[in-house]
């Protein structure tokens, strides 16, 4: 609801939209949000002072960077928004599949994510990480994820015999009912029509309420910007037709990415071929990260 309001404002604010937009999502760019904010400042400098409208508008820019043509119409349909490369959020519905039986715990995805998205290298900040589960004979589960598995795992021996062992990559579930979005006091966290949940860095006041509300520990407060961060499915890549960096680098294709509502999509095939589970199903967040071969111990 909030988003539609924002979008409308943006569209009505002609001054923001008359120039031919630059390609917002630069091919070298690894963080769409940052590129947007530059736009924002340029386009809306005087406007910022121009009361709420512009504040709203800037957020719209954040969300829908550089719309093409939309400003020319009198009352355009907010659902007709198009991003820089002709990308229309409403034509897509993204999801990710993770086949636990294929993951070898190499951690290349976690590493690639940090490089791709400028995530601080310290071991406290992750957009994605890999957990190792070792279920012992006595039923106990030993779980770890040293440095998010970026350096993979040591072969440390356990005293008890291991009866099952597997790796589970984790990331933001891009929930259909995202509690993080629900609680954000300023609407800095929002859900795009294609199902991806994003954070507007310019708006975020750093209250950390969303970090508390996310049941999956998928968010962190960036130590430099002091704003909330999370996985965006590499939004800057997917709008150009690329897959997220983690999917790209996975050597075993344990991660699959694609459209949820297009028959030819690999994710549809994935859902057909496997038994599917999601994390913390009972919380009704409706994750869009689907796991094949999910063990009961995984939370």
């Amino acid at each position, binding site marked *: 609801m909030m988003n539609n309001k924002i979008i409308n404002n943006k569209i009505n604010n002609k001054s923001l939209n008359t120039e031919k937009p630059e390609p917002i999502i630069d091919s070298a760019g690894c963080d769409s949000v940052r590129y947007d904010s530059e736009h924002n400042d340029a386009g809306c400098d005087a406007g910022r002072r121009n009361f709420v409208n512009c504040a709203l508008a800037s957020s719209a820019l954040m969300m829908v960077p550089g719309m093409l043509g939309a400003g020319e119409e009198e009352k355009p349909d907010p659902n007709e928004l198009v991003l820089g490369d002709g990308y229309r959020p409403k034509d897509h519905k993204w999801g990710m599949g993770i086949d636990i039986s294929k993951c070898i715990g190499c951690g290349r995805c976690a590493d690639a994510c940090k490089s791709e998205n400028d995530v601080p290298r310290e071991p406290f900040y992750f957009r994605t990480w890999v957990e190792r589960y070792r279920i012992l004979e006595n039923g106990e589960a030993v779980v770890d994820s040293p440095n998010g598995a970026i350096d993979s795992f040591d072969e440390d021996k356990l005293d008890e015999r291991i009866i099952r062992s597997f790796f589970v990559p984790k990331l933001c579930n891009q929930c259909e009912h995202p509690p993080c979005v629900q609680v954000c*006091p300023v609407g800095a966290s929002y859900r795009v029509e294609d199902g991806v949940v994003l954070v507007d860095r310019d708006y*975020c006041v750093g209250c950390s*309420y969303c970090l508390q509300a996310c*049941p999956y520990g998928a968010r962190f*407060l960036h130590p430099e910007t002091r704003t909330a961060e999370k996985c965006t499915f590499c939004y800057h890549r997917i709008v150009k037709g690329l897959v997220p960096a983690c999917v790209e680098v996975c050597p075993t294709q344990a991660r699959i990415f694609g459209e949820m509502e297009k028959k030819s999509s690999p994710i549809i095939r994935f859902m057909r071929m496997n038994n599917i589970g999601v994390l913390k199903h009972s919380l009704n967040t409706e994750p869009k990260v689907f796991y094949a071969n999910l063990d009961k111990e995984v939370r």
Partner: protein
Amino acid sequence: MEPTTHHLYSLFHEISGYIYPNEIELHWKLLIVIYPYLTGLVAGAFILASLVKVFNVQQLKPTYRMSLLTALAFLIAAPLPLLAHLGHPEKSYEIFLTPNTTSAMAMFGFVYAWYLGAVLLLEIWLDYRRDLVLWARKEKGVKKWLHKALSLFSVDIYDKAVRFDKKFVKIITIIGIPSAFLLHGYVGFLFGSIKANPWWSSVLMPIVFLFSAIVSGIALMLIIYMIVTMMKERTVDRACLEKLASFMFYAMIVDFSLEILDFMHRIYESEESIKILAELVSGKLFVSLIVIQLLIGMIIPLMAIAGAKLFKIPFELKKIVYFVSALLVQFGIFSTRWNVVIGGQLFSKSFRGLTAYKMEFLGLEGLMVSLAIMILPLFILWFLFKVLPPWDDARNP
């Protein structure tokens, strides 16, 4: 800005079990413990004042104005910890400009403004108006003008106008009670509505918050009343003190029952999180929850007050018992806030492990700033007492 992350490395040794990698650092720290503590005192003090106006508890009259001013002093300080904890306090106005209607936190500004403007300030003004006018008439210089200004330059103190004031005060108090409930129940809702966190997520949360607020507010007024009367070298009104102690006792009984109910409910339901919560309570929270909150802050004062009421002991001794009990209650309620806010972040949402909280000393979220914020309302109160003396003999006949 230099990111300060080295302190987080030392936390690695404190982790037990498995926590999600993003969970090492607590995101709500001491400041967020203080915030519900302060608003609780506001709500509690106000509800005590309402007992006089709405329920006509005459014995408590000596504390009426004091309670209102105390509520105001603490309310002024209440947003400071919230503001200081934000990553970007300079953007906080966005909460007013573009509030997200589904967010409980976004409502803070509105609840706060309503309570401050429509309830507390108005009630204080109406209650003091006649006195302000009369004081201004007698005084000279700065004080005269201050009181004149505070009365908003009104002059009408004829019976009809004063009667109107009185009636209006009553109406505001009646509106004020649900507002005070709202102010603090809302703070409980902030936590209680987070389904991701089983320690917080509970419908009882707002109600538990409310009753603990009432307990802490009455205890605070008992302390302030006794200290102020002693400092002014007057005698403590026996009936008033007894009533304060009684009401504190009743509120504690309700609060205690609610907490026990919550506890039993959790144990009986034994949800997925029960193991880790049990580990939390018997480990990292043992001292602050079982020893301070439950034993020192609840059971001991309850027994002490009950004992003082049941047995014939000299009033001088009673005074000490009540005073010490009220102090213990303050510690208890502060730990309650601590246990909710900090306790709720010590366990991983994977329910597999615990992290730790190391309080910083300096810095915006450190101990010093928090202490300053806690002491500030006392200074404000001292100032308010100077400007708007709440003593009975300062009233104009």
